[in-house]
């Protein structure tokens, strides 16, 4: 086994896990508090990436572009919540699924009209294009380290927000018992808009951080959305802690699995079979993990109380 | 005397820090109407839930007709002969009254992996269904959609569905709860007509109904059995009077 490659893949997995957590945190909060299944969460991720690319183009600076994209995403989130989603809180999940599916179609087409069908690239400034030597002779891209650090800082910030502030107290109360929050005489509408806005900013942050690694393109949010769903199902819907643990788990297993499963299979199978089965099977790993978790704990690893 | 049809042995169930059922040991003899009474939160519905199988006890055992059923799933207990009515009415609101009962008949007429024959015209289901509707006095509403029934009629329908499973034991969770005076009296009358024909474990708040129907009464308080005995004994029991009947009679 190539230990250096394994280390690199683990870091890549951690980085994917961090991005997944940023997406899953918003998703799980919105579900836990508003009881809303939001398929369009991936669209907000995509919009974050497009915003950052456009603003970076205008200002000529990646960092300024990223900083401008976040308030723009917040604004977008608030508009979406007020215009389209508010009426859906009281509806059943099927209605929410359909309506937010409609939102995906809308955003994808909007992106096609505004930014064109071809993918865009968001290039990094020189100081992030470098690499850091983790161990002597083992370089690792600075930007990926930056993603991991930013993500961990945000996760820490979320932890502080949820556990040590009044809004956090309301969020926790809302996630375990919706009726209680309204009983406290809180302006529910405002809290909902705020939570949705927060979720949007986190999704957009994930999108803009992923943008320099991937191509900014239509549909980029949909693939990762499903992964985020897998994450919150494994973690327990409504639980931020669960989302964090599951996101890191899924990120690691998916990345490391893709890198090593074919090699691993070669231990038992012929080269050719391993080469063929490897890619297909490695994409199944996280779903197998999900199935295994659900078979033993149908409500995920950290089910929030109350539902 | 023959073996009791239902035996609860040291049954215990906790929800978090709350002990909902606390070492309950109880026998229900075949043919008797056994009432379980107690103040709100005494753990009556939790007890019914454990007997019907919806709630797993933490400790203790349940025997039905001599068999251990502590771990059996709900449908198995129903097939063995335990039928329940729910405190909060629970029927199939989109089905007709007849279809509700017919489905209960069907449940005990072999498996339902029959994909082709029209069950809504199946005499072997409809005839017994009509019979049970007659028994509970709901024949007049047979063709109506269940959602249109009054609250009292819903309770009657529940009873018909329970009877349609040809139970050896009926678990009735507050059959008169929320029902108006007239309908309530009719329900008590109906249950009185069942005396001797069915074994009934009755959860009830209405003390008049309990003393009119029960052969034996068990008083539950905070999950524990406070007293158990014939209605006369219960009425005379000082602990019961203090804890419970005192309020009710006041």
């Amino acid at each position, binding site marked *: 086994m190539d230990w250096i490659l394994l280390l690199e893949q683990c870091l890549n997995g951690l980085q994917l896990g961090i991005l997944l957590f940023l997406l899953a945190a918003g998703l799980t909060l919105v579900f836990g508090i508003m009881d809303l299944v939001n*398929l369009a969460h991936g669209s907000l991720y995509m919009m974050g990436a497009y915003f950052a690319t456009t603003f970076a183009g205008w200002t000529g600076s990646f960092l300024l572009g990223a900083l401008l994209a976040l308030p723009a995403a917040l604004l977008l989130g608030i508009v979406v919540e007020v215009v*389209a989603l508010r*009426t859906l809180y009281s509806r059943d*999940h*099927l*209605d929410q*699924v*359909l*309506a937010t*599916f*409609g939102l995906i*179609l*809308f955003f994808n*087409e909007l992106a096609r009209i505004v930014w064109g069908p071809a993918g865009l690239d968001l290039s990094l400034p020189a100081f992030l294009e470098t690499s850091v030597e983790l161990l002597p002779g083992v370089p690792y891209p600075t930007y990926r380290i930056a993603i991991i650090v930013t993500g961990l800082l945000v996760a820490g910030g979320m932890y502080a927000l949820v556990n040590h502030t009044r809004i956090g107290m309301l969020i926790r109360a809302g996630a375990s018992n919706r009726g209680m929050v309204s009983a406290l005489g809180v302006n529910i509408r405002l809290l909902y808009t705020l939570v949705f806005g927060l979720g949007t900013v986190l999704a957009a942050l994930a999108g803009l951080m992923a943008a320099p690694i991937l191509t900014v393109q239509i549909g980029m949010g*949909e693939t990762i959305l*499903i992964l985020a*769903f*897998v994450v*919150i*199902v494994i973690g327990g819907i409504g639980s931020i802690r669960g989302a964090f643990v599951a996101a890191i788990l899924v990120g690691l297993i998916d990345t490391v699995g893709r890198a090593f499963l074919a090699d691993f299979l070669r231990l038992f199978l012929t080269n050719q079979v391993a080469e*063929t089965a490897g890619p*297909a099977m490695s*994409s*199944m790993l996280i*779903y197998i993990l*999900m*199935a295994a978790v*659900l*078979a033993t704990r*149908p*409500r995920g690893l950290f089910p929030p109380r109350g539902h | 005397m023959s073996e009791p049809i239902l035996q609860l042995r040291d049954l215990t169930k906790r929800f978090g820090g709350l002990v909902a059922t606390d070492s309950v040991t109880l026998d229900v003899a075949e043919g008797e109407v056994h009432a379980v009474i107690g103040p709100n939160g005494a753990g009556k519905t939790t007890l019914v839930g454990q007997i019907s199988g*919806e709630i797993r006890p933490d400790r203790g055992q349940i025997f039905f007709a001599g068999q251990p059923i502590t771990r059996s*799933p*709900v*449908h198995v207990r*129903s*097939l063995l002969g335990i039928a329940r009515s729910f405190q909060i009415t*629970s*029927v*199939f*609101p989109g*089905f007709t009254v007849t*279809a509700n009962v*017919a*489905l*209960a008949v*069907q*449940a*005990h007429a072999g498996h*339902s992996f*029959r*994909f*082709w*024959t*029209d*069950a*809504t015209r199946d005499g072997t289901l409809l005839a017994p269904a009509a019979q049970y509707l007659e028994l509970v006095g709901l024949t007049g509403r047979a063709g109506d959609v269940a959602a249109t029934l009054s609250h009292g009629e819903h309770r009657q329908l529940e009873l018909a*569905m329970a009877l*349609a*499973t040809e139970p050896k034991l009926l678990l009735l969770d507050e059959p008169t709860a929320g029902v108006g005076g007239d309908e309530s009296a009719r329900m008590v009358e109906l249950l009185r007509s069942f005396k001797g024909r069915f074994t009934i474990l009755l959860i009830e708040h209405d003390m008049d109904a309990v003393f009119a129907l029960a052969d034996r009464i068990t008083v539950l308080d905070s999950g524990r059995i406070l007293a158990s005995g014939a209605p006369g004994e219960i009425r005379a029991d000082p602990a019961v009077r203090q804890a419970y009947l005192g309020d009710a009679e006041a």
Partner: protein
Amino acid sequence: MRISASTAVASGTIVALAVVPPITNALQEPFYLGLFLRLMILAIAAISLNLILGFGNMVSFGHAAYMGIGAYVVGIGTFHAIEDGIDWLANGFLHVPLAIAASSLAALVIGAISIRTRGVYFIMITLAFGQMLYFIGVGLEVYGADDGLSLYMRSEFGGVLDINDNTQFYYLVLALLLATLYGVKRLIASRFGLVIRGARSNERRLAAVGIPVYRYKLVAFMVAGAICGVAGVLLANRTDFVSPDMMHWTRSGDLIIMVVLGGMGTLFGPLYGAAAFLLVEEFLSGITEHWQIVFGPLLILVVIYARGGIAGVVHALERRRE
């Protein structure tokens, strides 16, 4: 005798479908024959989804996967028939039972895990499993991976019929559509159907009267998967192409839209829904290539204001006439 509005619309739709080939052949518009062919195939898939979604209240968001399985049976079969000269692998009388077996087996595994869960978990798990099958398709390097596989021949039905002729193919699909409708009509009125419909409104009660709900839901899930697998066989032959894209979760979303648009839990609803979906798509995309920017918000409006779907509207008209 007065005919109810629902019956009139239903028979009208079937008659209209039956006269499509002579009309499109006379007008020399094979495109529209192909469009209606696709419409009926998707209708069969939507009907199968309605069986669990509409009648059983199981919001399965991975239903397109079964269609993909059926399609790959044809794709892989004909691929080897041509590449390796194994003629019997092109036999349609083999494709159909194989598709049924494979898709119901997949439904058995997916259902066995998903049905243990409730509500939004069920939605997300079926979504995730559907997507897993999509990625398996993407991983099938031999069969074109994400580029998919072109069919160089269609399923062969011996001397019985030749589906290379689109008119014959059309009537085969129409016959299968009618058979599916009739089968579902019988099924939902059967003892099995009553259990499934009962589970939709009150699973707890069903268990309390002595019915082991889980296994009935699982079998319904498999039946729906099997029917959808057959639709996949037809779709592969219709498009002469299979690709993982047929299993993408947005295709499952399309099927849900058809069912809801047409009217959940009604016999003909999914057919109307499939028709409305394809015709609206055809109409809007004729106006602008960016038709989805209209269709998306339209969908939101339908969800918010017209939940009964088309069948619900017809039913409401019927009531007004009474």
